[in-house]
């Protein structure tokens, strides 16, 4: 256990069904992002960089790939003695049948024994599907300074979008007085980021009671936080300033990738003091051919480009052949754009092949075109 005595649990069981075909066979946290990463690399790297060295990952939906991916703690430097990344899918127990995680809080409740084995003072709850860089140790300092029972990270969102989020209403010092899930008429724009620090002893007690409550949906936002507020506990909002994105839809996943092209987006993956770690793909450097034209792009190793690439993000091993045009597009790992094909405003899924001279996507479309199946071309 690290010096800060805080253990992290990442909720990574959701399907993310709004990502459509991208999550048919993998859970959302394992979806690729930013050329070489997976979404869950962000909370895991944040943990590693914040000095947290025991991380439980709660998996459920299509967990095979995710389990084997996170089990290799070495990728994030979470592999020294006493540290590790622990995969925690639902399991059968001596006193309970195998059951699914019924909600975010239930996922933690079912692993109380795991957490107890490390005897942490604080428990950090994270979600496995957001893109952001955050120092959780700073948040813990805030939590201790305010003598809080629980601290919730919040981020200011545009007022007109506030009704899409769980909103924290605070007093002038930042103490939470009210929590409203997706309020029709929001009173504040401080949205919960789904990041909580709890004093473990208190949370443990709450969870044991929640497990027995037949009316509970076993959810942190719907059940645990309101109960804590009702009981008059001291809950504080920790305001995060920086880049944060929920990549819940094809459009928002595309946007979060496009943000990497903008030096002013607030997300800098090159900062040597806060690197995002990931699997190291064995791949050649980027091969840029004699006929390539690349303008404003984010490209990773293993790509082969001999066509035109504009305002696009290319993932490991993607290929753009001669005469092809890729514009405002995300090519996921292994995607291939054959000669003369034109791809515009699209997100091309892993290993999908766009045939020669095929035309995909539309510069004027409102939504991003998801290409999840091979597209036939002239061959």
């Amino acid at each position: 256990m690290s010096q800060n005595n805080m253990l992290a649990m990442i909720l990574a069981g959701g399907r993310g069904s709004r990502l459509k075909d991208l999550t048919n066979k993998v859970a959302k946290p394992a979806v690729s992002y930013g050329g070489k990463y997976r979404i869950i690399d962000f909370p895991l790297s944040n943990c590693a960089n914040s000095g947290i060295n025991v991380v439980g990952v709660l998996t459920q939906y299509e967990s095979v790939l995710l389990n084997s991916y996170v089990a290799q703690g070495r990728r994030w430097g979470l592999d020294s003695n006493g540290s590790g990344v622990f995969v925690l899918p639902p399991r059968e127990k001596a006193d309970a049948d195998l059951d699914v995680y019924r909600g975010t809080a239930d996922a933690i409740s079912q692993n109380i024994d795991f957490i107890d084995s490390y005897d942490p003072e604080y428990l950090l709850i994270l979600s496995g599907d957001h893109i952001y860089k955050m120092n959780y140790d700073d948040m813990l300092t805030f939590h201790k300074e305010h003598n809080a029972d629980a601290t919730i990270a919040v981020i200011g969102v545009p007022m007109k979008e506030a009704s899409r989020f769980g909103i924290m209403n605070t007093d002038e010092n930042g103490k939470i007085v009210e929590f409203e899930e997706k309020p029709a008429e929001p009173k504040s724009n401080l949205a919960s980021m789904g990041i909580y620090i709890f004093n473990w002893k208190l949370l443990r007690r709450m969870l044991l009671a929640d497990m027995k409550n037949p009316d509970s949906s076993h959810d942190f936002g719907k059940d645990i936080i309101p109960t804590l507020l009702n009981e008059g506990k001291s809950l504080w909002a920790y305001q995060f300033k920086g880049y944060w994105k929920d990549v819940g839809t094809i459009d928002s996943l595309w946007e979060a990738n496009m943000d990497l092209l903008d030096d002013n987006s607030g997300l800098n993956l090159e900062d040597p003091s806060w690197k995002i770690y990931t699997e190291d793909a064995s791949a050649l450097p980027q091969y840029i051919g004699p006929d390539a034209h690349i303008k404003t792009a984010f490209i990773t190793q293993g790509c082969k480009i001999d066509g035109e690439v504009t305002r696009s993000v290319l993932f490991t091993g993607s290929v753009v052949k001669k005469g092809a045009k890729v514009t405002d597009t995300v090519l996921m790992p292994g995607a291939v754009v054959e000669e003369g094909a034109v791809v515009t405003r699209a997100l091309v899924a892993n290993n999908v092949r766009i045939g020669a001279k095929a035309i995909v996507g539309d510069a004027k479309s409102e939504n991003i075109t998801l290409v999840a199946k091979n597209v036939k071309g002239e061959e």
Partner: protein
Amino acid sequence: MATAFGIITSSANHIKVAGMQDYRPMGAFSFAGRYRVIDFPISNMSNSGIDNIQVYVRENPRSLAEHLGNEGAFNINSKKGKLQLLFSDNSTANDVYNTDVAGFAENMNIIARKPQEYVIIAPSYMVYTQNYNELLEQHIASGADVTLLYQHVNNAKESYLHCDTLNLNKQKGVLAIERNTGTANSKNIFMDTYVMKKDLFISLIRDAQKMSSIYTLSQIINSEVNDLDVRGVLHRGYFATVTDFKSYFEANLDLIDVDNASSLFNENWPIYTVTSDAAPTKYYEQADVKNSLVSNGCSIKGIVENSVIGRGVTIEDGAVVKNSVILAYSRIGKDVHIENQVVDKWAQIIHAKEIIGTPDKPGYVKRDDIL
């Protein structure tokens, strides 16, 4: 199945790469952007199931020790496998004493204790892929005492001048191992790669020491070529030597050619290296990159042609980089024009506006230098 351990040798004392070698041994030279030269022999061994590997180091071991400290990166079994760095005392009195045989002799006890029956010896300063398991099987099937790997080339008059050649009879028996003197274009270049039984290897080291302090492994084999069954095996596919500055420069640029690259890099034969956790590379609106190999972590605003760009390189607005090898973390400043250069790590070219070499005489910019 017969088992072998691996030995990766450092370059012979007559091989020098001006500039670069002041900072690190050849095995640690950056290659094709994200690799080091030694990644190739180690990956060849690792992919062949050889996971007991000795690496001999003579000078400036820091970068090599740091790189190879990441044993896991090379897919070597963490329990059964071993990647050993073996140092040999460098004679300062006279470089002629610093032979491969001297290094082996100093570590003789460690070699003798190896349980494997065979040894495969490969150089840290040559780039090729080879399945050593197949080579070992071929060696055993042939009944030879020593198998040497070679490549047939047609440009030996101007290239490979520091290498040895094999003089072969029609049955691929080795008649002699001789230095390439550049007398003919068609030559069998010895790839400094050997297969033999460990016991024979040990006795050859002892023979060499008896003969002369300056004898190398290839010289003692050459002198015993009539008593031993020494055979050559032809290697096909990409082969490059890093035996002088020009060959280093050319070998890097060779890999821009997609045919060469695909002959060296094969999905089923991964080349391992140590990750730097760099983000992907950012190409800006004004960037224009053609015919180049680019590593991750770069920021490119200028023009790049026919070049190999290492990790984390910055190429600023209006800069022009042609026919050059830029090593990691260097910076080519605004409006700087460079051609036919090797720019070593962490160098910054910001004051000099133009540094132009020729393909025959490429220039070198020192590590950490500010020009």
